[in-house]
């Protein structure tokens, strides 16, 4: 297990990657993924992801994500992205609301995040902050003292693509502390890799992998979680 952990960590270090699949840049799209997930808390489990991408107009896009897992830890998120073209690339503001429903443990992990980003053909970077409300349930609406607030957390994402965005296929590598389904604390890095292939103008297949070590900033990193997801997207 130690060797496996070291191997995964090495791979993660060599292949830092990202989970923002470019399944639609100027087209409405829906997607579905199925994944094998593992962490040392829940063990092996499966995940089912559904998403919708909505480029409302040239200055505004939205994204909605929903995940169910067999570990009874689910997530729902909405992202709003006003965007502005600059001479090279595009600036954007990323505002998101994410609800992590840890049903099994009785917590709603509600996170609001806002950040600014810049994306070009080969690179996308994003920096922002988030506020977390941890709401235990069943919740007593007459007593707010049980809500735990983490008022400030830094969010970041650096993603590199091997092909331009308009290419029919692409692979990206990313380091971040957030995914579409979870916003972790500042020091909890997540390494991701994504690939997509456009079969035709409507259909696209996706494959992505994620590795979440723990204790990196304890200077004693060990394997904690990994997942592999595969699925498809339909561009309207």
């Amino acid at each position, binding site marked *: 297990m130690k060797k496996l952990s070291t191997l995964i960590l*090495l791979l993660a270090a060599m292949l830092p990657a990202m989970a923002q699949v470019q399944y639609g840049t100027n087209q409405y799209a829906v997607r579905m993924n199925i994944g094998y997930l593992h*962490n040392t808390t829940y063990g092996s489990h499966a995940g089912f992801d559904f998403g919708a991408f909505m480029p409302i107009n040239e200055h505004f896009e939205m994204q909605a994500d929903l995940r169910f897992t067999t570990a009874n*830890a689910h997530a729902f998120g909405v992202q709003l992205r006003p965007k502005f073209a600059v001479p090279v690339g595009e600036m954007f503001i990323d505002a998101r609301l994410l609800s992590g429903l840890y049903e*099994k443990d009785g917590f709603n992990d509600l996170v609001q995040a806002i950040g600014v980003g810049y994306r070009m053909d080969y690179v996308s970077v994003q920096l922002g902050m988030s506020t977390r409300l941890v709401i235990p349930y069943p919740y007593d609406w007459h007593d707010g003292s049980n809500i*735990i607030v983490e008022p400030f957390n830094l969010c970041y994402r650096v993603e590199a693509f091997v092909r331009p965005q308009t290419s029919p296929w692409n692979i990206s590598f990313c380091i971040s502390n957030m995914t579409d389904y979870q916003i972790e604390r500042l020091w909890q890095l997540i390494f991701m890799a994504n690939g997509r292939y456009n079969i035709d103008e409507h259909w696209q297949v996706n494959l992505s992998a994620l590795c979440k070590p*723990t204790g*990196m*900033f*304890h200077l004693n990193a*060990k394997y904690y979680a990994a997942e592999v997801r595969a699925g498809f997207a339909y561009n309207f």
Partner: protein
Amino acid sequence: MKKTIILSAIVALLCGCNPETTNLDIVGMFSGSSAGIDERIDDSFRYNDEHGMPVINATAEEYKVYVCTDTHVDFTRKNWEQFIHAYRADLACPLALHLGDLINAQRHWDYMKRPLDSIPANPLKNDTLLAVAGNHDLYFNQWSEYLRLWKTSTYYAIVRTPAGKQDLYIFLDSGEGFLGQRQTEWLKQTLGWADNQGFRHIVVCTHTHLFKRDTSQGHTSNMPLEETYALIHLLKQHKVEMFWCGHDHSREITNLGTMTSIIIDALEDPEKHPAYLIATMDDDPIAYRFVDVK
């Protein structure tokens, strides 16, 4: 110029990986050099099996527990010595705890341990000091050194009062920011056993904190979210009254309904506001106060 920069970067990287020249285990950021949690648990359980879990007899129904964390002893140990003097002078204190990061980095273990031998213990009272490993006690492959001096990092201790009441203290190893499957399984079994023993108080002690409610994003990392919520759920299910931890260096008290989580201030010498905690254990809910170290 370019060559100088590249050469400097290589030298800095090599120095950063060398335990002789730095206090930070940079390689440990990607793959920890100490034994992993499962191996450490094996070592801890081996000691527990051979020696049993500590049972401490208090001399009164009400007694005090002194708790400190993050002493980070390296070249000075003023606050650490003050803590030892304080708990040894208090006749009502049969038990003191250290919640990890005893030393700052490698090569300071014996310097840290020495005051425990040199500061006289009070022969009239129990003088037990128990500890768990923190991340600073592990990186640069220091688990064997921790083990040499402190023997175990996953265990429990029982304090018995003259009237036969018992308080349970559970110690968990979170030196790499999570508990791991086997330690969690042991915790479940221990808490399940404790349900039927009629303990007056149950306290869980570890190094890594659960939440970070202040804005001190500083330099310390939590457990992953999944682990955090699963652990709180488990502890509350078994009526754990308090969760004591350190690592963050700044005091934080979080109400988790039936359980209270307390991050205790760091006691290290250069700290701006070093402090330790004194808990009063009697038939009422646990009372506590912080003592600032001057």
